């Protein structure tokens, strides 16, 4: 579907596709998906899912289709503030997305429909809740038909969750390598032997993986016909969903041994200094009135909440899976809005991925944010990762017009800690060096020393 502004990630499903016109996102429903879509709307399932915050609402609009030869209808889905990807989610974010998918499938079955895909990329966090964004994921359920999306569910959700929970949290990053989810034979190989005594993991991962290898060359039609002849009963289908749900629910992960876990207790900020830093940021937020901010190196979101609490859509990025997890659990328990904690290694940010490197956007492609926070961050990038200050300035200038950045001098105990075991090759890492490097890309609009501290806060605006 070239030349019609079709979204680069929207090409697999013949029942429709996303396109944008005049900066507004639309979804064309093709005639191939007309029956399924019509039944979905008439069955009441759409309303139920929207009411339960499990599906993004849309309006049918009188808009010219992007490809008239295929078109049935055009709908306009409500815009999602930010598209995040499963490899940027914490353990519980991925787990909640998995449970939302199963919950949707359960409701769909009750309404005589079924999910024909179970892609983690179809779930987005809207007001802190996992929400399905693909309106065309539903098909009319036919008794006897197995779940076509079963394999995808296991690869996108169950396998990475099991690996994160039972082997190592960092294995969630496999999702960045495998765009269609973690191959089950790989998951089976990596999981400890004891998981063979867990009914769910034994069947949905280990035996599932062996069956995939063994029957790789048989046509799926033949396989299903040769088994019972009647296919999968509805009770069987519900049993399968129940089993997946129980298996997912039992997988847990406790954020322990965290890099930043008690960060705010080990900073060299006094209470007065900490309060002053917050006051400075809040003052600048009021002045700038941004619609969106990205807090880079957000830890557990203490400062992101200054924005989200004031109604600004805030992304709290951090490299530490524990910090992101704690942040998400807190927002969930306090039912906070406007905040989304996400995992990111700034020294190697999310790249553009997938077919033609265009299915998943890089970090910068999903910007710019109205403002970026870089609080207690610069020394990690400039010293731990050796990034020269001018390059840091270039990087931030590519992300946002406004930058709220904290200068952490060499004499700061946190910087001294980083330098303890290595040669100090950072002659230009001085306040003057910082101001001159950032001055080439930004105007320094304001700067304030943080009370009872050696640190200084800057409000920078990008030069045109």
């Amino acid at each position, binding site marked *: 579907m070239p030349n019609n502004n079709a979204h680069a990630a929207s090409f*697999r*499903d*013949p*029942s429709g596709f996303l396109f944008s016109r005049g900066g507004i996102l639309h979804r064309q429903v093709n005639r191939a998906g007309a029956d399924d879509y019509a039944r979905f709307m008439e069955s009441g399932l759409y309303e*139920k899912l929207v009411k*339960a915050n499990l599906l993004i609402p849309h309006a049918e609009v009188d808009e010219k289709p992007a490809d008239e030869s295929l078109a049935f209808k055009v709908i306009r889905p409500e815009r999602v503030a930010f598209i995040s990807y499963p490899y940027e989610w914490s353990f519980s974010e991925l787990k909640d997305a998995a449970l939302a998918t199963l*919950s949707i499938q*359960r*409701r769909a079955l*009750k309404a005589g429909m079924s999910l*024909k*895909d179970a892609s983690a990329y179809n779930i987005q966090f809207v007001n802190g809740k996992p929400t399905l964004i693909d309106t065309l994921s539903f098909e009319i359920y*036919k008794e*006897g*038909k*197995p*779940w*076509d*999306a*079963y*394999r*995808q569910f*296991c690869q996108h959700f169950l396998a990475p969750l099991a690996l994160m929970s039972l082997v190592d949290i960092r294995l969630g990053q496999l999702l960045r390598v495998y765009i269609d989810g973690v191959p089950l034979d790989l998951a089976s190989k990596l999981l400890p032997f004891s998981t063979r005594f867990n009914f769910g993991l034994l*069947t*949905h991962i280990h*035996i*599932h993986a*062996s*069956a*995939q*290898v*063994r*029957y*790789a*060359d*048989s*046509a*799926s*039609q*033949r*396989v*299903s*016909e040769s*088994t*019972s*002849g*009647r*296919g*999968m*009963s509805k*009770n*069987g*289908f*519900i*049993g*399968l969903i*129940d*089993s997946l749900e129980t298996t997912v629910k039992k997988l847990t992960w406790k954020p322990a041994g965290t890099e930043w876990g008690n960060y705010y207790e080990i900073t060299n900020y006094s209470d007065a200094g900490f309060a002053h830093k917050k006051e400075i940021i809040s003052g600048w937020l009021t002045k700038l009135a941004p619609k969106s901010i990205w807090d880079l190196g957000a830890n557990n979101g203490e400062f992101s909440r200054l924005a989200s609490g004031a109604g600004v859509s805030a992304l709290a990025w951090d490299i530490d899976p524990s910090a992101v997890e704690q942040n998400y659990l807190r927002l969930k328990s306090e039912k906070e809005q406007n905040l989304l904690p996400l995992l990111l290694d700034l020294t190697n940010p999310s790249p553009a991925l997938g077919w033609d490197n265009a299915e998943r956007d890089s970090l910068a492609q999903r910007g710019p944010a109205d403002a970026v926070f870089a609080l207690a961050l610069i020394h990690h990038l400039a010293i731990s990762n050796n990034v020269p200050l001018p390059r840091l300035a270039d990087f931030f200038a590519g992300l946002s017009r406004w930058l709220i950045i904290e200068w952490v001098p060499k004499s700061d105990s946190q910087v001294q800690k980083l330098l303890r075991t290595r040669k100090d090759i950072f002659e230009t890492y001085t306040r003057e060096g910082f101001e001159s490097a950032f001055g080439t890309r930004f105007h320094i609009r304001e700067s304030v020393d943080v009370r009872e501290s050696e640190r200084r806060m800057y409000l920078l605006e990008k030069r045109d």
Partner: protein
Amino acid sequence: MHFTPLAYLDPGSGSILIQLIVAAVLAIGVALRASWGSIMKLFGKGKTDEQNDDDAE
């Protein structure tokens, strides 16, 4: 049995086979639970469908 139309994603032969087997086993439990539910409902102790919907969240 006819599964028409075919899925736009390849469901995978092994994936179909294993879920048919697992589902066949689990169907028994679901059927038992359903009949137990209707027995309990007779005595006014069962959950309504709406409550089950909420559970699913």
